[in-house]
């Protein structure tokens, strides 16, 4: 029986190969995800280890929680270094300064693609994690060493002059050395420049502050013991760790970030591809089992048990699964490289090291690949066992009994209902985010399967509608195509469902992004009165000088700086979206911003004193606060305050969280510089001209961007588009797999209809006409998938948007894009039909007629 399964695959090479590809691509995505995230993790671990190499103990500022606003370097008092040196067992201790600033080459800042731009204070030899590769370390205030990779990428050589953005504008320095850092092949987009430590402190107003203090112990002193002794003499605002602990913590943080976002996101996309593959496997095995009913009946008549027949089909599935998974693991390496290229292309600079296929990756790939293949082939395999031996004589395949069909219909309904329920639970239910996401993913899979199975009931009407214009335009070939598409509604349904999954996700992304864009656009329009937006690149802080320069431009009525920090409210876990405090002068706000009040009015703005805040609706709801309530807050740097809410406003996108005066913010937060500045133009001035003047005035600050309202919205949209395009690129894999599904299903149908094709040729149909019949059938099938996908995708997006309606989301359908996706489904149909149509047109008339 094993031999029979092997022989079966060998005989049906094309079909087996196409089925295998369906599995292979999904497995490749899973493998690639793990390879890629392992690589990123290794690269970051390498960097973390490198940075504390040879350091026994490290003192850092104590952070209550990690903030997403990293523009302000957190620091400790430099005098602590002296105290550390006095501790018994300390051989040497040195303070380091790290600040954030951009390289300026030829008047333009160097893009970091979301990675940090670091300005490092040079350390003495023993404490320096970097290695000079060329030249020397910077000695004078106007000298700097540059990360070799940055020099290479930007064509900078020793002796060149470059700029570095600082809190005081651009510092001009001469490159006297190039350094490397650790083993990582690439640090992604990160830029790093080293200058004398005292100069960095000056340029960033960090005199008397250190970012960290590194300690080397005397020989034989245990780092753990040393760290305890140091901790004993330092205040609570300083955190003391061994070098090892520090590296471990940084690595864990990165692991957390990758594990909580990147890995699940990529795996979800891979999961969609696997689901599409499963549909195709199911379809292929269903069709071939039907075609081979006579063979199975004969086996049974010859004395094979049901179990043996089951073994023939599952054995074939097992082999296909193993071969495809093995090939998929190989292809996964390629997919990881593709991911690297994709991330680069959309501007996410990610550090890179060598690609490693961990044993865990191989195991998961094999389990998923083989498991999915077997599971999808199981129902057809069971059907094969039910063929009565007598069918070998009659040649009439048994039809599914009314009972089993009813059972299938009920099962389908239950599946779809469960899927819908889980999806709704995931979106609107309460509970931890992970379980909600789990419910959402499970719900989506159930829904997809349920819809795929129930799609058979809509295939006929849909085919009639889609086929009508084709029939009108192309006559008999069109009519035959439509009839053929309607012939096996179940088969057509599953084939088109494979396309539906990929397309539904694409549509979901498109509709969701459109909603996001339109709601952001609407809120910017409604709430912001400022005509000009001054922002820091990648949320870099804007130097104080820049704010002043903008305010002094004639025609500027008000330039209002807005500071941000993240909060922990009432000791509850901090939420990066809502738990914010915006530090802005309330009395100047009306010039640039219109409040939408929930509880309160504009008169509050004049009264807002120290320790008093206005809170956003979400913030109020999340922490159960009303007007007059007081609450405790803590900043990431450990500062604490007691605040009192005076009013409630609504703004889920721009000034989220809460609003207080800059004085209130700085009473517990180190935030000194604004993230953006809203500029209002006086009525008598021309906005465009003022914008040009402001741009000119801020020329000294190349890391600052000046934009009109429309430009600002475009920037937000293009940032969103980057993510959307990345998702499209990853979802394209599912569409490619469904292409193979369509081709496979057509090949099998052609095989079944060889006789008919022969007749058509005999009575005068040309090869071109046969090709057209197949192509139109394919297009009808793929457009059914496209329509279903559009409906399901819009439905998902609608649900998702409803669940976020409190953030001001509203459904807005990007009709043009949806039409383009439908056109794409036509393309999928045409491309999927190329090879099968050629096969059909080459049918030999005589062979075909003798086929029966």
């Amino acid at each position: 029986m094993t031999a029979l399964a092997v022989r079966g695959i060998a005989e049906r090479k094309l079909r087996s190969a196409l089925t295998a590809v369906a599995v292979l691509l999904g497995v490749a995505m899973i493998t690639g995800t793990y390879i890629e995230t392992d690589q990123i993790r290794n690269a970051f671990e390498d960097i973390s280890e490198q940075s504390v190499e040879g350091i026994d103990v490290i003192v850092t500022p104590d952070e209550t929680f990690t903030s997403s606003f990293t523009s302000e370097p957190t620091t400790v008092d430099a005098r602590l270094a002296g105290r550390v040196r006095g501790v018994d067992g300390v051989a040497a201790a040195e303070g380091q300064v790290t600040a954030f600033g951009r390289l300026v080459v030829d008047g333009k800042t160097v893009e970091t693609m979301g990675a940090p731009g670091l300005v490092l204070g040079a350390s003495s030899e023993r404490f320096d994690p970097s290695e000079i590769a060329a030249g020397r370390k910077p000695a004078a205030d106007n000298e700097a060493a540059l990360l070799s990779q940055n020099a290479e990428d930007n064509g900078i050589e020793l002796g060149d002059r470059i700029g570095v953005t600082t809190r005081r504008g651009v510092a001009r320095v001469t490159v006297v050395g190039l350094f490397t850092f650790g083993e990582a092949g690439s640090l992604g987009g990160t830029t790093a420049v080293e200058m004398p430590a005292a100069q960095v402190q000056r340029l960033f107003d960090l005199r008397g502050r250190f970012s960290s203090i590194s300690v080397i112990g005397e020989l034989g002193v245990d780092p753990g013991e040393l760290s305890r002794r140091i901790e004993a003499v330092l205040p609570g605002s300083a955190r003391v760790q061994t070098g090892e602990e520090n590296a471990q913590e940084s690595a864990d943080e990165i692991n957390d970030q990758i594990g909580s976002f990147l890995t699940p996101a990529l795996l979800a996309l891979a999961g969609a591809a696997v689901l599409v593959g499963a549909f195709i496997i199911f379809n292929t095995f269903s069709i071939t089992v039907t075609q081979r009913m006579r063979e199975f009946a004969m086996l049974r008549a010859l004395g094979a048990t049901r179990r043996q027949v089951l073994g023939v089909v599952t054995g074939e599935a097992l082999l296909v699964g193993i071969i495809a998974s093995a090939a998929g693991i190989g292809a996964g390496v390629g997919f990881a490289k593709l991911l690297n290229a994709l991330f680069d292309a959309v501007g996410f600079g990610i550090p890179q090291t060598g690609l490693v296929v961990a044993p865990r990756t191989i195991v998961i790939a094999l389990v998923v690949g083989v498991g999915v293949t077997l599971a999808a082939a199981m129902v057809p395999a069971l059907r094969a066992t039910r063929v009565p031996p007598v069918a070998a004589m009659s040649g009439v395949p048994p039809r599914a009994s009314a009972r089993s069909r009813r059972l299938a219909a009920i099962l389908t309904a239950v599946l779809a209902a469960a899927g819908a329920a889980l999806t709704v639970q995931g979106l609107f239910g309460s509970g931890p985010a992970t379980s909600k996401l789990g419910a959402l993913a499970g719900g989506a899979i159930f829904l997809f399967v349920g819809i795929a199975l129930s799609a058979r009931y809509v295939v006929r009407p849909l085919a009639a509608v889609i086929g009508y214009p084709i029939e009108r335009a192309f006559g008999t070939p069109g009519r035959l195509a439509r009839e053929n598409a309607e012939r096996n509604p179940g088969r057509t349904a599953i084939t088109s469902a494979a396309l539906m999954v990929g397309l539904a996700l694409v549509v979901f992304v498109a509709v969701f992004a459109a909603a996001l864009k339109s709601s952001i656009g609407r809120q910017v329009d409604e709430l912001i009165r400022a005509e000009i937006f001054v922002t820091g690149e990648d949320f870099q802080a804007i130097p104080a000088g820049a704010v002043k320069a903008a305010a002094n431009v004639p025609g500027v009525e008000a330039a209002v700086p807005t500071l941000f920090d993240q909060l922990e409210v009432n000791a509850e876990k901090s939420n990066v979206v809502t738990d914010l405090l915006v530090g802005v002068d309330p009395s100047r706000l009306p010039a640039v911003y219109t409040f939408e009040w929930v509880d309160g009015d504009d008169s509050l703005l004049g009264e807002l004193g120290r320790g008093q805040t206005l809170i956003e609706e979400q913030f109020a709801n999340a922490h159960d606060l009303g007007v007059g309530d007081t609450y405790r807050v803590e900043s990431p740097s450990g500062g604490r305050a007691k605040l009192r809410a005076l009013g409630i406003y609504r703004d889920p996108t721009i000034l989220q969280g809460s609003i207080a005066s800059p004085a209130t913010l700085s009473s517990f937060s180190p935030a000194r510089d604004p993230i953006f500045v809203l500029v209002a133009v006086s009525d008598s001035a021309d906005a465009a001209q003022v914008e040009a003047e402001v741009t000119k005035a801020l020329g000294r600050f190349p890391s600052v961007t000046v934009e009109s309202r429309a430009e600002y919205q475009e920037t937000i949209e293009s940032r969103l588009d980057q993510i959307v395009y990345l998702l499209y690129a990853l979802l394209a894999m599912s569409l490619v797999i469904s292409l193979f599904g369509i081709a496979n299903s057509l090949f099998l149908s052609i095989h079944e209809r060889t006789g008919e094709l022969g007749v058509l040729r005999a009575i005068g149909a040309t090869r071109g006409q046969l090709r057209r019949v197949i192509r139109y059938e394919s297009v009808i099938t793929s457009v059914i998938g496209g329509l279903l996908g559009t409906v399901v995708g819009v439905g998902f997006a609608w649900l998702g948007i409803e669940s976020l309606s409190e953030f001001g989301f509203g459904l807005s359908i990007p009709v043009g894009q949806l039409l383009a996706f439908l056109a794409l489904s036509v393309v999928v149909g045409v491309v999927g039909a190329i090879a099968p149509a050629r096969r059909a047109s080459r049918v030999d008339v005589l062979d075909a007629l003798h086929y029966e």
Partner: protein
Amino acid sequence: MMDTNHEGRDAHVVAGHGLTKRYGEGEAAVDALRGVDCGFARGSFTAIMGPSGSGKSTLLHILAGLERPTTGWVEIAGARLDDLSDHDLTLLRRHQVGFIFQSYNLLPVLTAEENITLPVTIGGGEPDVRWVETLLETMRISGRREHRPAELSGGEQQRVAVARALVRRPAVVFADEPTGNLDSAAGREILELLRRAVDEFGQTIVMVTHDASAAAVADRLLFLADGEIVDQHQGLGVEEILDHLKALRQ
């Protein structure tokens, strides 16, 4: 031009000249036809008979342009098939040739009437409504026109197939064992309809059969053995045909 059939060449709507067909190569080569010359007059009904392996099906396929001869050539309605490309051959089949197969070979997705008009509509043409009505009447399937093949009996399906073969008013209809899958009553009906097509519509029919009672309906009989025409007769009765066949087998 050799004319073995003692009939005027101009009257031949289909003719085969020096047809040979060899399958395989070298030692394993099989000669299915060893030089056949034949002609078929317009409006004639010819039956080709012969034992299994005599080459009668091969001859039919070659005459119909479904297969190319190893040597020799075929003319249909004045066109030499060996001059035609695959595409032109397809168009010639579409316009000049009708087929009736043993296993009906209707398209299951089309109705009876759609199957009949398929040779016209496949080329984007409009069927001649009156002619289609006449055919439906003659074939006694007017009441079944909206039915799909699966809803028709074998005899009805074959009647649809006959109508389909006639719908283009082709120069010639080739029938390959048209009664082979039918019971004797349904078979007789088909033969009678073929006869009427010849008598009333002037249709030329070439039919391969091993059924003597079917052959007896034809005007002329060609007997084939070992790839050669060994005998031909006009208007033989069933008994005589059976005698001939017996003689050929010996």
